[in-house]
């Protein structure tokens, strides 16, 4: 069992609870940096994909997991970031400016949309954001002059201070680019969570009324959360555009919006880890399915006929299992396992029992 004796307020505030925890994350960081030399280019591309999804996941997690606002429409903001980024690069803006700028503009758009939309709650908010995703697909086609309509856009080559970075040409450089951006966003996220703004977000999630009575400006705080969320997701979209090489209105459709939400639920709602775990599932699932199918057809001598939609169906199936048996997601299960070992042999099964909330309607009819 480990006891952490805190001797100053800083012990509470600092990022890592105790030295061993910092050490483990350091090892993880070293592993991430060394990754290009440990695996081949194809898997490095997969890892980059996972990181991009993790960035999008962090964006959505901030809004859904920490501020408690559901969104079924975030692919729309990925699209916005992707299109803005490429359009600006086409006009000659260097990547190192266009990407963050795309994020910032997407954030502003998010803030504007947030003001009317975040007055809604629960299912109405879900439906409104769903409509936003669907509408964005159509709007992209309508705005053909800028977006290339159904044909879409091709991502411009990236050049940072003379260094050419291309997903296929220089996969290692691209990987590091994405990794750096991931770490920066991660640091900002953690900082916000341990500062008053992060607490205000969580307060909104758990009890809007008492948050208000304690001085939290609901509209402004929700809009801030939405804006930050959209900005991060916009950056992820921009990176995704370069990763895919080319994209159109169907690249960021409603299904993707839903997948993002499912992803962070699988990972574990309410924790930053959840975004990463969820991204790993999304990124690695297609490979896993391919491998299992190969071994199964090897055993049963079936042809290797591709089954359409099996990835999404498996993803959905995993989610149903998670929701039914481990609502806290992968991170939740990891937490329980870790606590079991930390407290051994004093772990009690009911430590993480969630209080049941029975339905008490707020409708009047």
């Amino acid at each position, binding site marked *: 069992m480990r006891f952490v004796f805190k001797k100053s*307020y*800083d012990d*509470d*505030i600092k990022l890592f609870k105790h030295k061993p925890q910092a050490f483990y994350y350091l090892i993880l960081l070293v592993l991430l940096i060394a990754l290009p030399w440990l695996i081949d280019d194809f898997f490095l591309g997969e890892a980059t994909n996972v990181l991009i999804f993790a960035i999008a996941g962090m964006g959505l997690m901030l809004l859904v997991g920490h501020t408690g606002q559901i969104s079924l429409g975030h692919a729309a903001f990925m699209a916005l970031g992707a299109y803005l980024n490429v359009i600006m690069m086409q006009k000659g803006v260097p990547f190192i400016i266009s990407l963050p700028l795309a994020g910032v503009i997407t954030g502003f758009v998010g803030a504007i949309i947030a003001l009317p939309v975040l007055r809604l709650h629960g299912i109405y908010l879900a439906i409104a954001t769903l409509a936003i995703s669907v509408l964005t697909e159509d709007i992209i086609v309508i705005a053909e002059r800028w977006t290339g309509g159904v044909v879409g856009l091709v991502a411009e080559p990236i050049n940072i201070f003379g260094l050419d970075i291309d997903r296929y040409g220089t996969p290692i450089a691209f990987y590091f680019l994405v990794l750096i951006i991931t770490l920066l966003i991660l640091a*900002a996220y953690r*900082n*916000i969570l*341990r*500062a*008053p*703004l*992060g*607490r*205000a977000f*969580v*307060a909104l*999630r*758990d*009890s809007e*009324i*008492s*948050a*208000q*009575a*304690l*001085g*939290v*400006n*609901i509209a402004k705080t929700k809009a*801030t959360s939405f804006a*930050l969320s959209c900005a991060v997701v916009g950056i992820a979209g921009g990176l995704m555009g370069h990763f895919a090489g080319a994209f159109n209105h169907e690249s960021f459709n409603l299904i993707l919006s839903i997948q993002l939400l499912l992803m962070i639920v699988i990972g574990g709602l*309410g924790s930053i880890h959840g975004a990463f775990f969820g991204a790993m599932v999304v990124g690695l699932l297609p490979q896993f399915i391919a491998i299992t199918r190969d071994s199964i057809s090897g055993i049963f001598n079936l042809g290797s006929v591709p089954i359409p939609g099996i990835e999404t169906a498996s993803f959905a199936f995993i989610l149903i299992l998670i929701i039914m048996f481990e609502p806290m997601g992968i991170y939740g299960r990891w937490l329980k396992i870790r606590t079991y070992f930390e407290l051994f042999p004093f772990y009690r099964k009911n430590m993480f029992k*969630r*209080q049941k909330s029975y339905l008490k309607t707020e409708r009047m009819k």
Partner: protein
Amino acid sequence: MSLISLENVTLSFGGLIAVNNVSFHVGKGEVFSLVGPNGAGKSTVFNLISRFYDPKKGDIKFEENSILALRPDQVPSLGIARTFQNIELFEQSTVLQNLLVGRQRHRKSNLISEMFFAPSVREEERRHRHVVEEVIDFLELQAYRDKYIAGLPYGVRKVVELARALATEPKLLLLDEPASGLSLEETNDMIYWIEDIKNQMGITVIMVEHDMNLVSSVSDRVLALADGKELAIGTPEQVQSHPKVIEAYLGKSGEKA
């Protein structure tokens, strides 16, 4: 000079008049109690002061200025804090985190400095935690500091509600049924705490309560309400023996029981 005053406040929900032409004022450093049967409009008065409702008629003044133009989230910055009758804590956070949210109205940092966790943010955090730790010491919540609300017993949650309100460093504290559901011992603790809040911290207290023992022990003055109307106002003894109050609680004497 009164700290807060209600003047001819009326509020109705559709056909039901919840608060009917109620006026009272509370002086600085007073402990003022609102009593009355259920449905008398006591919590509604609190919700009016917290600006969750708008009165149909009348005015509410804090430190001689009308507060009717304020939003609910602007009220804490005046120095008004409240607890809720049905506990409204943040269930998925620890006691410490709940109390830290109480410091929101003192927040001076902005988004950018928080994203980078600038030294000014760190300094502020230390100060916030210092204040919160003092509240924890005052209410003897040390044992529960890092525990999640979801696992705490009811009595402790009531104290955490109080602690969170105190963490805002208020001038006026609105306590909505602080003793409801508490045992005799816990109610006695509450009596001592309210006395300390008044005497040591100089905070003005308005309390909605049913427990007459608590009311008479700590209150300077009491206002009795029934059906939204004022029945009597005065010291606890005066109000308790007022014929109208007795009638509201027990019925007219001379009627068959």
